[in-house]
């Protein structure tokens, strides 16, 4: 608690750096006021822990989270977050946090959970815990509608596959397709392999199904479709989960139960159907 107080004070002092017009004495007054305020707020925070604060990326990440013109956070993840809170029987507020500071914010108890499209990785597991995944945009293989590829290694025999370089999708293509396919061509940029797919220089491309949505909706992408979702947890990782402080083991359990609940009672599907035309949970 003292920690939060001091952090508030420090941030207050830092913010005063800009106010050069203030005299030395005024500055001191500000600091004293800040200390007083910090004490009050600090006590408030510790005595009432009614609200669960969900941290989300403050930068827009549509369709998951973005700020609407009226200033509210909207998006799939905002709705899922609300549904999870309801399932847990908690009241929640959404706190926008800059992405690079979101784990420090969690550790400093400025937020209680990260519900911000954070992929579960071993690296992050060293610092924080994760709930079970609540979504995992699957990788997908996209090819011409007329093609009979179905994502199996046999179906890409003699074909040229395009992937973006140094992605998990490249790893997947090399692991599952390279031995059967004519070749796996690597591109610097996601849009470049789509262009070559349209031009017919590659027969299929492997990428993130969500990222393909825009391309498939465009004129150029009309004749193409997602042939199959590709799953390989060893390559793609488990997906996106809620990031939670290591000591809050109880909260992890609550999130897991809530995820299961909204998956079972249809809330999850109802929300997802508004945003995606495929299964974002990614079984």
């Amino acid at each position, binding site marked *: 608690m003292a920690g939060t107080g001091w952090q508030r004070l420090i941030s207050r002092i830092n913010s005063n750096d800009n106010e050069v017009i203030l005299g030395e004495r005024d500055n001191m007054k500000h600091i004293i006021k800040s200390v007083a305020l910090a004490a009050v707020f600090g006590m408030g925070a510790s005595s009432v822990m009614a609200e669960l604060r969900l941290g989300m990326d403050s930068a827009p990440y549509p369709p998951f989270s973005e700020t609407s013109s009226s200033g509210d956070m909207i998006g799939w993840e905002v709705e899922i977050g609300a549904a999870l809170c309801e399932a847990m029987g908690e009241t929640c507020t959404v706190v926008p946090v800059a992405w690079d500071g979101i784990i420090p914010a969690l550790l400093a108890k400025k937020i209680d959970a990260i519900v911000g499209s954070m992929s579960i990785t071993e690296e992050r597991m060293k610092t924080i815990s994760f709930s079970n995944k609540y979504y995992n945009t699957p990788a997908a293989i996209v090819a011409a509608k007329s093609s009979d590829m179905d994502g199996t290694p046999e179906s890409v025999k003699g074909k*040229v596959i395009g992937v973006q*370089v*140094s992605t998990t999708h490249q790893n997947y293509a090399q692991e599952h397709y390279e031995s059967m396919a004519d070749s796996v*061509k690597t591109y*610097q940029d996601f849009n470049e392999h789509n*262009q*070559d797919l349209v*031009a*017919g220089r590659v027969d299929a491309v492997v990428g993130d199904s969500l990222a393909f949505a825009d391309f498939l909706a465009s004129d150029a992408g009309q004749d193409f479709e997602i042939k199959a979702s590709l799953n390989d947890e060893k390559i793609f990782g488990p997906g996106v989960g809620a990031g939670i402080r290591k000591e809050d083991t109880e909260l992890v359990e609550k999130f897991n139960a809530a995820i299961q609940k909204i998956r079972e009672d249809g809330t999850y599907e109802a929300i997802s159907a508004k945003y995606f035309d495929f299964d974002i949970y990614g079984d």
Partner: protein
Amino acid sequence: MVWSWVPEYLPKFVSGLWITLQLLSLSVFFGMLLAIPIGLVQVTGPRWLGAIARGFCTVVRGTPLLIQLWLLYYGLGALFPMVPGIRESFLWPVLREAFPFAVLAFTISVAGYEGEIMRGAFKSVPKGELEAARAFGMGRFTLLRRIWLPRALQNVFPTLAGEFVLTLKSTPLAATITVFDVYGVGSIVRQETYRIYEPLLFVAAIYICLTGIIVLVFNWLERRVPRPA
């Protein structure tokens, strides 16, 4: 510095080097074949042909090579779906590959830059020598083959060496259209090993060696050509 990746990627670098050399030699060869007439018509006329040649040089030299390369590869590539039957045609195995487009783009670039240099080269041959050749009874093509062209090339030899070195150093652009030359292989190493400096230094060293070879070859050629006393 970590160099343990070198043995693993060496075979890839060898094939990358081969691609780079092919790109360079093919585009220099075909580029020079084009550059000679492009330079010549600007000196001899006819005027309209000279104007076209000058326009070509201006456009090629006035636009970034990367854009030319992409216009050819992705731009033309975007037109393919509109041509019916193109994917069944005998041309498709060539059109489908990126390498021919890279050679074409670099050839055009060499033709544009060297065409301009050859214009100056043809112009700089003293009129008296050409008149003397004519006085010997040489026809126009004999004169070109035996006097004008050799004298012109001789004048610009050092310049051409520099130009070809510049062409060599443009070839990494081919990596942007999926041609994995030396630089492209270097990027693969960077992306797979997360080492930044070592692959870049390694690639830089290869280019320095190649440049050195070009310079040596041209020095040798220059010495073989007898200089007027």
